[in-house]
């Protein structure tokens, strides 16, 4: 993975010192609340319902075991002994003291971590597919480009005070596991007819109050021009994006207002002026960035032997076979598999991990996966490079620490925001809804029979839980001070991205598990063999679901 050099270290240390000064000035009353706000946000610090919240950046979701151990230590020393993995592949602390934040940042800096631009109206942490480098359907590994984008966007002097936050995601595989069409800019790595690497560029996606699926404004951008093209897009946005109304300030509103063709025309005109400038990614620069992501030293394994062993182990152990089926992912190197550690056992808020679990993750990464881990946008953790022969051992260890729940990709592997339990913007709680649904659908055979199904829950329309792009989405709404839940169907985060449609009137919290049950019944009764929920929905539409759910009891 990318390692800091002296310059990175110095810059991040200077940032910590700057923020320490700002915090001191704020506590001494020299910096107003209003002035401190964007400064603390650009350092990841929110002020929340119960305490401040600190969002720590995990660039494109990648961490090494030393960093994970440091996080464990920080949660113990400065917080309540747990942390939260987010849909933006970052880590959040829910209970730090404001006074301690400069010290936390200093401790993070020692292990090449920070909280820069994890919030605020600037370019946020770039995200990507958690299986980069190992997925069989990957065309090109996005990490070197993500790192170049990280460096380009970090402390970008022109774009630190944009009209609104700005999110970039990169995908290098056929299957979009990074939800790039739900981002302000989505970068899809492609090859042209001549076999040259380039990028398809999507803009104007985003969730929240006005959910929109991004549109492609360029089919093939040559590799050299990635940064200048991003710069052109953000520059057009910085000049023309609305600043009079924060709900209309996102780039998606500008793209919609101008129309994608006109927006693209302006970007191209801006880009023409800068494309041959200093930001060009020379072959040397690309080669340099790629050096940080070398292929690990894989063993040459007897794949036939490893496969036979696995089949044996799976054959004689139902629980292991279930886990193997759901929580591992094929690897492009024979004899290896990627493993997802589930943070979604019933009764634990999705994405929450304790300090002990963090340490266990670090140990497992060291033992089984070259010391690296990935955070997924579904709030789980991935070890990408596990030898098949070691899977059984790893499974037993993961089980001991409580993250071997064999539910990846199923209904109970839901995305869920912190909701009313922690978040001061919430209209409703979301964690108890997740838990109630997990409790009702705890029969694994049934879950497996349903197949891959994305259930996403947000506690308000800010959509931190991605409810718009869940096959089933749940949104907390407030009706005269009471918490209700709206259901949406048909959202999709993948390359066939779509936004869910509202089913109808909302439900009380008690009604939610049963309502989900009725939706699933309609699916099971209508599905063709092996059809997934989203495909059945796309075939039969909203109506049959609606009829069942709102049918009068006879």
């Amino acid at each position, binding site marked *: 993975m990318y390692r800091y*050099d002296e*310059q990175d270290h*110095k*810059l991040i240390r*200077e*940032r910590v*010192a*700057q923020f320490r000064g*700002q915090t001191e000035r704020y506590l001494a009353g*020299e910096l107003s609340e209003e*002035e401190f706000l*964007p*400064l603390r946000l650009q350092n990841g610090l929110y002020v929340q319902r119960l305490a401040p919240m600190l969002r720590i950046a995990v660039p494109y979701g990648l961490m090494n075991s030393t960093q994970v151990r440091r996080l464990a230590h920080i949660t113990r020393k400065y917080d309540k002994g747990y942390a939260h993995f987010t849909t933006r592949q970052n880590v959040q602390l829910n209970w730090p003291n404001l006074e301690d934040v400069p010290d936390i940042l200093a401790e993070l800096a020692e292990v090449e971590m920070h909280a820069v631009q994890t919030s605020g*109206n600037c370019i946020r942490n770039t995200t990507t597919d958690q299986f980069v480098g190992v997925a069989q359907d990957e065309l090109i590994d996005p990490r070197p480009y993500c790192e*170049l984008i990280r*460096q*380009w*966007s*970090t*402390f*970008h*002097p*022109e*774009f*630190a*005070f*944009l*009209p609104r936050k700005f999110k970039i995601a990169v995908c290098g595989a056929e299957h979009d596991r990074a939800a790039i069409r739900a981002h302000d800019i989505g970068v899809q790595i492609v090859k042209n007819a001549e076999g040259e690497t380039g990028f398809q560029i999507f803009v104007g996606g985003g969730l929240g109050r006005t959910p929109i699926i991004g549109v492609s404004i360029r089919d093939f951008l040559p590799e050299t021009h990635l*940064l200048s093209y991003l710069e052109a897009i953000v*520059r057009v946005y*910085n*000049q*023309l*994006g*609305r*600043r*009079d109304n924060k709900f209309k300030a996102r780039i998606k509103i*500008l793209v919609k207002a101008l129309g994608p063709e006109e927006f693209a025309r*302006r970007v191209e005109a801006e880009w023409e*002026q800068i494309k041959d*400038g*200093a*930001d060009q*990614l*020379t072959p*040397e*620069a690309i*080669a*340099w*960035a790629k050096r940080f992501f070398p292929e690990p030293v894989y063993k040459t394994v007897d794949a036939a032997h490893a496969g036979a062993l696995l089949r044996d182990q799976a054959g004689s152990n139902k629980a292991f076979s279930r886990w193997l089926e759901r929580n591992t992912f094929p690897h492009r190197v024979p004899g290896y598999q990627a493993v997802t550690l589930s943070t979604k056992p019933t009764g634990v808020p999705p994405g929450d991990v304790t300090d002990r679990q963090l340490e266990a993750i670090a140990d497992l990464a060291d033992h089984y996966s070259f010391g690296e881990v990935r955070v997924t946008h579904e709030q789980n953790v991935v070890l990408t490079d596990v030898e098949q022969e070691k899977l059984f051992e790893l499974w037993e260890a993961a089980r001991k620490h409580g993250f071997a729940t064999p539910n990846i990709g199923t209904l109970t592997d839901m995305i869920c925001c912190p909701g009313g339990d922690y978040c001061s913007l919430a209209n409703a709680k979301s964690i108890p809804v997740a838990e109630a649904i997990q409790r009702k659908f705890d029969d694994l055979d049934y879950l497996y029979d349903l197949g891959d199904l994305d259930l996403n829950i947000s506690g308000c329309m800010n959509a931190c839980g991605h409810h718009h792009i869940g096959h089933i989405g749940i949104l907390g709404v407030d009706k005269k001070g009471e918490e209700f839940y709206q259901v949406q169907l048909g959202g999709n985060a993948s390359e066939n991205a779509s936004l869910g449609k509202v089913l109808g009137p909302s439900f009380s919290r008690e009604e939610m598990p049963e309502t989900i049950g009725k939706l699933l019944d309609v699916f099971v009764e209508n599905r063709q063999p092996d059809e997934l929920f989203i495909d059945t929905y796309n075939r039969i539409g909203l109506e049959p679901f609606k009829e069942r759910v709102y049918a009068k009891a006879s």
Partner: protein
Amino acid sequence: MPKPAKKPVGAQPENPQRVLCDGAVVENQWQLLQLGGDEDVSAESLPAGNLILPLTLWLELRGTLQARKNEIGVWLDSDETADLIGDAAKELPLIAANFPAFTDGRAFTAGRLLRQRYGFTGELRAVGNFIRDQLTYLTRCGFNAFAYQGDQPMEGLLDSLQDFSDSYQAAVDQTQPIFRRRALA
């Protein structure tokens, strides 16, 4: 560039006694001209001395101001883009860019474009409600003067100019992004 989106209503920039210029606190030698409403302004009716005119007025009068070329600057409001000055920037001694609110970051782009696209070499001055913590970013976007109107001591501002000693990306002060410097090293 066609007309950008509306600006939020913000206070108009002030004329502080002293400004920060090229790393030192100096007397403010320039008078920023505010227009109330529909005054009829002509080249003759302008006061004497160094003046910073609002963009619209300057566009209107520029043909008649040749004789005062070295004492007439222009200020851009945040909804006015650098291309409205364009190559004429080369001839101007001073351009000011207004921050109606420090969170309105449009002038950062204006600064870079004036310096890097339109060849402006004069004094580039931030006016209005920017804050001390933005000084390094402003400097990187080409600003060398700051008409600070907040209530913190100027000496503190000087400290903030030193917040960062290096940078990742290319801008006005550093023409090579870090990846180039590293890859070429």
